[in-house]
């Protein structure tokens, strides 16, 4: 029986982010190409190539999403955020042609999450980014569903290799549905097994004994 003693907080997806979601914390570390729009006195040490004590206005640097979001202010012009290349027009055209050929793990792995978070920064391209991200999901859905519902008792690493993190979690949900059903069909769901908590506890005890 599928019971979980701990329910992890899911990622927010879209423009929201969940404070306690591990996925969203990892997403917030993703690097964005930025340009300073003001000088940052005495913060030169943060920037490797800089030899002066200040970060000059107009310096190009990479910043994690959390920092860019914190510094960004559409009125005060502190930093300008550039689009990572996978969200630029060239790649949007590729996605428009056939999103199924793209390796979203390599290009991501938080393609949908980061694409949505980028919308926090004003850009005339935002509507197109939002549209591409949505359409990419819509058009990749069938393959995620089919592969997750067909793969039974086989190595799935090749199937998930090119999926972004959110797609992988959907793949896992599809697999869970399939496995639960197959287990039931084979008459295994009525068999009782020790909970993983108990099993782990035993393992830990053994480990302690051996140590």
């Amino acid at each position: 029986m599928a019971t979980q003693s701990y329910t992890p907080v899911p990622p927010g997806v879209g423009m929201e982010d969940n404070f306690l979601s591990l996925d969203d914390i990892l997403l917030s570390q993703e690097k964005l190409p930025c340009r300073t729009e003001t000088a940052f006195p005495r913060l030169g040490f943060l920037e490797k190539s800089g030899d002066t004590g200040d970060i000059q206005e107009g310096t190009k640097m990479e910043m994690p999403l959390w920092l860019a979001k914190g510094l960004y202010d559409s009125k005060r012009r502190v930093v300008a955020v550039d689009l990572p290349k996978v969200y630029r027009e060239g790649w949007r055209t590729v996605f428009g042609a056939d999103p199924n050929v793209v390796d979203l793990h390599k290009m991501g792995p938080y393609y949908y999450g980061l694409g949505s978070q980028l919308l926090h920064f004003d850009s005339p391209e935002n509507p197109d980014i939002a549209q591409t991200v949505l359409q990419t999901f819509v058009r990749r859905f069938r393959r995620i569903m089919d592969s997750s519902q067909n793969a039974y008792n086989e190595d799935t690493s090749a199937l998930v290799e090119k999926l972004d993190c959110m797609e992988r979690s959907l793949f896992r949900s599809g697999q869970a549905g399939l496995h639960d059903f197959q287990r039931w069909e084979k008459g295994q769901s009525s068999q009782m097994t020790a909970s993983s908590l108990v099993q782990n506890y035993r393992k830990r005890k053994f480990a302690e004994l051996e140590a």
Partner: protein
Amino acid sequence: VSVMSDVLSEASEGSGDDSQELMTPAELIEKLEEAWLNEKFSPELLENKSEIVECVMEQLTHMEENLQRVKKGDLKASIHRMEIDRIRYVLSSYLRSRLQKIEKYFPHVLKKEKSRADGDPSYLSPEEFAFAKEYMANTETYLKNVALRHMPPNLQTVDFAKCVPEPSLDSFVFLRVKVQQENILVEPETDDQSEYAVDLEVGSQHLMRYRTIAPLVSNGAVQLI
């Protein structure tokens, strides 16, 4: 049956609610199963069904008392025991799915309960309310001990209402219609669609947003499946 009716009539006197009519035990079990499935599939915590839970408990206790007088190995008694086990399963699964939701959404559940007007029905049973408060306090203490007290003074508080996600009422749900509904407005998903109305016929099944039909779940007109 008589025990049941007494309990139910007392309950209805208390709340002054005429909709709570006398039920047969079979109807009571049916209501419990409906509540169980609704709770399992609705994204938010539903109004508690304490009266149903109490009446079912009473039925079970009553039946178990009777069974103690029967000798072991009796066929009839074994049939009764099987039924008791089945009902008990539904009852505990129902209560557990509520506890899971309370754990998942505790700040919002407590906020809703605290902002409730005096006459409104409570979403939580007294036991659940105590559980939610304790869960919140324990989570707070734990976070404080392992992390927050090591943080700079201005970062030592966490606003749970902000960092625990709210139930998503826009989730889709599967449902079966029990009482005919006309003109349920379905909001468009995209700009180039327009809103339209659907009729929900008795026995028909649908996939739509929970938000659209949430009132129909609480008044029993639809059953989540």
